[in-house]
């Protein structure tokens, strides 16, 4: 017994004679630059210190014997070094390697604009999209203030980098929306169907996009529904002379449901604001939307979105072929859209996505007494996987099935025509994201499609890459082939057609620091196999072929500043576009009517605490576009007036739960003109009669009141107004 105590006492005394060990050295990166604030310590003890500004560290430890000396520094791989501590000073010089982290690694930005809230290099926030003054709550209006777009006032759809509006496709949560626009009267602007406040996370791809998407020669617009936690609340809005909207949200721990309904009728508005057209029936529509979200298991999310919509209008237009007569164009549209999706992490490395969308759209049109109808039943099924193959390699692949059932029927004089077609598209896609470091990434992908109607395959390679020059700037490149089936209407009349094609090259530079971003992008698109036909009178087409071709190239510049002005931010876009094509009924190569050489936009938003208001303004300019005058020899040789518009909006938080909103489009009162429409036949003097194409009214006014009632005291209009 005594021996043990004596022995342990001797051991204790022996250890204390040895004393502390001094541990010191330096910490640098692989280039030899000192690292300041690295954590150096003996594993499983408290003993350690931080490296100083010269990368030097020094500390004393009471630990003895074999130990592990650890060094950690954010963004770098930690090191563990074996040391033997016996009182003699030890010196260690560490060289730390950068740690790869997908979250901090470079992102491919070529041809891609993302509206996000959390990202650092922020191009736009989702609030920006929803609150751009001139957009009047239409997503397309907001996207038209970004570079790469041409606003086409007589259409209201998205025209990207010299492409027609069919060349852009819209997806919600990865699933196709076949009819993203309302049916509109000829030569009058339409709007998007969806409320921008539904989405948090919009990606606008202007070219060179991922193998996951296809059938869009120019671009894809990816809208993602809100993921953040919602509060129980009731929203009511009233727009003067137009209509009302109500929406209710109920949420629980793992999900939420929002249901809304609205009714709009332009009749009262048209009596208040002078209209340029005559309406036999002012536009009327009502719709019901439902959005449902539920967490499943540990990492699954199930989403459902449905939109049911009915609209009608009647427009009286001068019959240019029979002066003095009018044509009554009446349209009744019903549209049903349903979108469901499920994402789930199957394991640490595998992620699954499964979804389906379906559209039932019916347009019943009457041109005077002649009925015309177009019905579309479309469905999209998608199954996708994400596999983390290695630390730096990620695979993304899947398969899609698209179905389209299209029916067109028309009765006109003695003509009684009805035709239906079914077109199914089977798709497989795969791509790999390969990082060589935090600074460099390559994305290689391929997409294969088979169309049952065309009985043809296509395969498109897609390649993109990005390189981080430094912490705040990068360059990015994208290249790919893009195929698109001809329009359904044209497929009715011709067999033996094939996919249209566009090849894209995109090169991009961007720098983002301290809430300012600058971005410049050059692009080149080569079009081939575009549909060509001969047209005798409205939609009377023959001689179909895929002999059309063309190209588009240009420069897009974007600058956003959320720092310089307190409580305000703005962005400036400029696009330069050169494009020519020979397609549709064009007799030869020419610049299309939906492309303008120069496009400029400036958007400003200001948040005033004193006035409790969000004030916004934007100004856009487009250089004159071409249009075709049949009285001229040359095709598409006439020039429209230049387009410009100054728009302002004011959202005022009147009370706790009430916002008053006012907006005016085209404050300057410019008389916009989008070329002319012409008679189908020349008169006895051989002249085609004409009439200018103008918007519905010179200015557009919006005055509304929005109420929010929520269960939680903390949530109120404060957030809505931002």
């Amino acid at each position, binding site marked *: 017994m005594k021996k043990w105590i004596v022995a342990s006492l001797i051991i204790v005394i022996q250890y204390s004679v040895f004393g502390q060990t001094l541990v010191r050295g330096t910490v640098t990166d692989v280039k030899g630059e000192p690292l300041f604030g690295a954590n150096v310590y003996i594993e499983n003890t*408290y003993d350690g210190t931080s490296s100083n500004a010269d990368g030097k560290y020094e500390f004393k430890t009471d630990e003895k014997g074999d130990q592990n000396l650890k060094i950690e520094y954010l963004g770098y791989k930690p090191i563990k070094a074996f040391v033997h501590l016996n009182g003699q000073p030890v010196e260690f010089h560490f060289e730390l390697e950068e740690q790869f982290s997908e979250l901090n690694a470079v992102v491919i930005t070529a041809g891609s604009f993302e509206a996000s809230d959390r990202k650092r290099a922020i191009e736009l926030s989702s609030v920006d999209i929803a609150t751009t003054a001139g957009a009047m709550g239409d997503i397309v209006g907001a996207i038209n203030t970004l570079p790469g777009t041409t606003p086409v006032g007589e259409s209201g759809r998205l025209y990207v980098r010299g492409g027609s509006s069919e060349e852009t496709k819209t997806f919600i949560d990865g699933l196709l929306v076949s009819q993203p626009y309302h049916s509109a009267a000829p030569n009058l602007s339409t709007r998007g169907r969806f409320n921008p406040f539904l989405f948090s996370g919009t990606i606008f791809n202007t070219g060179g996009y991922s193998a996951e998407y296809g059938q869009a020669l120019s671009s894809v617009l990816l809208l993602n529904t809100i993921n953040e*936690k919602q509060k129980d609340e009731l929203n009511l809005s009233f727009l003067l002379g137009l209509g009302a909207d109500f929406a209710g949200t109920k949420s629980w721990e793992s999900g939420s449901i929002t249901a809304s309904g609205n009714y709009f009728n332009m009749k009262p508005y048209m009596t208040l604001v002078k209209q340029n057209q005559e309406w036999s029936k002012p536009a009327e529509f009502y719709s019901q939307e439902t959005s449902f979200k539920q967490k499943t298991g540990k990492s699954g999310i199930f989403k459902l979105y449905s939109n049911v919509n009915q609209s009608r209008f009647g427009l009286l237009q001068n019959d240019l072929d029979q002066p003095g007569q009018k044509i009554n164009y009446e349209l009744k549209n019903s549209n049903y859209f349903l979108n469901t999706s499920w994402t789930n992490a199957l394991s640490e490395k595998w992620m699954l996505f499964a979804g389906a969308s379906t559209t039932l759209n019916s347009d019943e049109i009457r041109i005077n007494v002649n009925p015309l109808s177009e019905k579309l039943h479309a469905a999209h099924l998608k199954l996708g996987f994400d596999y983390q193959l290695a630390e730096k390699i990620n695979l993304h692949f899947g398969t899609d099935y698209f179905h389209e059932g299209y029916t067109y029927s028309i009765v006109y004089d003695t003509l009684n025509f009805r035709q239906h077609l079914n077109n199914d598209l089977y798709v497989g896609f795969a791509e790999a994201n390969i990082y060589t470091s935090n600074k460099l990434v390559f994305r290689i992908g391929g997409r294969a499609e088979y169309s049952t109607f065309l009985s043809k395959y296509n395969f498109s390679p897609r390649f993109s890459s990005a390189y981080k020059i430094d912490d705040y700037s990068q360059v990015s490149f994208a290249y790919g082939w893009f195929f698109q089936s001809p329009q359904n209407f044209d497929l009715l009349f011709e067999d033996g057609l094939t996919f249209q094609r566009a090849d894209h090259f995109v090169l991009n530079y961007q720098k983002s620091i301290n809430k300012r971003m600058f971005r410049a992008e050059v692009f080149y698109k080569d079009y081939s196999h575009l549909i060509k036909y001969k047209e005798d009178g409205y939609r009377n087409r023959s001689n179909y072929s895929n002999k059309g071709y063309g190209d588009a190239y240009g420069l897009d510049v974007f600058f956003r500043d959320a720092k310089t002005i307190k409580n305000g*931010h703005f962005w400036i876009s400029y696009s330069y576009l050169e494009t020519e094509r020979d397609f549709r009924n064009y007799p030869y190569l020419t610049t299309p009517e939906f492309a303008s050489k120069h496009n400029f936009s400036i958007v400003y938003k200001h948040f005033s605490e004193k006035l409790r208001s969000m004030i916004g303004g934007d100004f856009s300019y487009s250089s004159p576009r071409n249009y075709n005058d049949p009285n001229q020899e040359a095709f598409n040789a006439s020039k429209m007036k230049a387009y410009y518009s100054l728009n302002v909006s004011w959202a005022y938080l009147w009370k706790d739960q009430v916002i008053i909103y006012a907006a005016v489009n085209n404050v300057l009162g410019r008389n916009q003109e989008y070329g002319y429409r012409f008679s189908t036949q020349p008169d006895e003097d051989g002249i085609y009669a004409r009439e200018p194409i103008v918007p519905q009214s010179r200015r557009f006014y919006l005055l509304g009141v929005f109420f929010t009632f929520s269960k939680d005291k903390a*949530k109120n209009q404060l957030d809505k107004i931002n």
Partner: protein
Amino acid sequence: MLSITVLLIGISAYADNTAYHSKMKQTLDEMAKCRTAEDFKKVANSFDRIAQKESGEWLPIYFSADIKILLVYLDSAANFEQKDQYLDQAEDLINKMEEMDPDESEIQALKAFMIISRIGLDPVNRGQGMIGDYNAAITKSLELNPENPRAMYMQLSSQVGEAQWFGKSIDSFCPKMKELYENWDSYPVASDLHPQWGKEQLWQIMQPCN
């Protein structure tokens, strides 16, 4: 022989416990003396070292995360992106703590502090999306401990801020704030190592009263 071994083991275990306690106390004292961002970063590293030794304790992680959030306010040399990165680090640590102890009120209160700091960096764009998560964290913190003065302070702080923004008077909140301030020290603190911040911040927002 056996009893001495047991005694020696008991003594070393007790020594470890007091070693942890005294190291934490020492580091907390250092934290109270910090002035510059560099000082704070050194102390955060100290807490990280304690955390790697005491794998079952969330308190050292808590203070490391707390410092990262404070750096957003204290590091004047940092730009927007760097401040966001501090909050990324804090968020990672908070997620780790939530896994260790999902029912700890203080962790939820710190989470709320992190979220409100995120919003503060870009309120116009982030307010709408993140305010739901902020309120959820405060609600959970109060559910887990209705007498957590930090959670009560943050709830009052956002209510007062909201009222001030509307140009309304904050008088209705003054009695609550005064009561909280007067009773602050009487609210039970689980140990002398547990977080105690908030009284000074409460004093600041109370100033417009009376």
